[in-house]
């Protein structure tokens, strides 16, 4: 399936881009993160991240659909 990935903060620095299109057989965010973490050598463990799908927070086992936009969010630090 085709997904669009968004990267923020330290993940963006590590991935070297703010967004990318990926083709993947991962069916949920957990499997998808394992793939991209290996490819970009991301070191933040999933327990430290939150997931968003199509602009809303989502669960790690959410079933993904073709064309979904997925973001893995590092701990926030606004304010």
């Amino acid at each position: 399936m085709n997904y669009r990935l968004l990267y923020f903060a330290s993940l963006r620095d590590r991935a070297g881009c703010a967004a990318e299109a990926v083709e993947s057989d991962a069916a949920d965010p957990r499997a998808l993160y394992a793939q991209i973490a290996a490819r970009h050598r991301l070191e933040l463990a999933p327990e430290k991240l939150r997931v968003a799908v199509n602009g809303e927070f989502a669960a790690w086992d959410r079933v993904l659909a073709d064309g979904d936009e997925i973001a893995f969010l590092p701990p926030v630090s606004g304010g």
Partner: protein
Amino acid sequence: MSAFRLAEIPIDGAALGRELASASAGACVSFEGWVRNHNQGKAVQRLAYQAYPALALAEGERILAETAARFAIEQALCVHRVGDLAIGDLAVWVGVSAAHRDAAFAACRHVIDEIKARVPIWKNEFYADGFSGWLHPDGSPVAE
């Protein structure tokens, strides 16, 4: 206009305060977060805030709606800067109007606490030693 906003230009706290004006409100409490020249013992030279705009706006709006439901207030507004900021710049502004000051103080504090904990905005601090780092909500560096 939405109650929670992201701003790429300097925040005008006085103009925001005027949006809260009301004949039935007796109290207005505002919080301003300023860019501080130090954090956890390190000299900070400047900051950059990065946001996930779609989700930040939705989550910020949710926080303000929850706050209005929970406290006896008239109105709550919040604006957060994104982009590059210098020492002394206004990074975030929260304003709450209410009939009485108890609710205004409690709600203003609630808003800034929740914004810091939940809204997808990230702070990158640039230090005097040339290094920079993304921060956790508690101000400590992200491990990666």
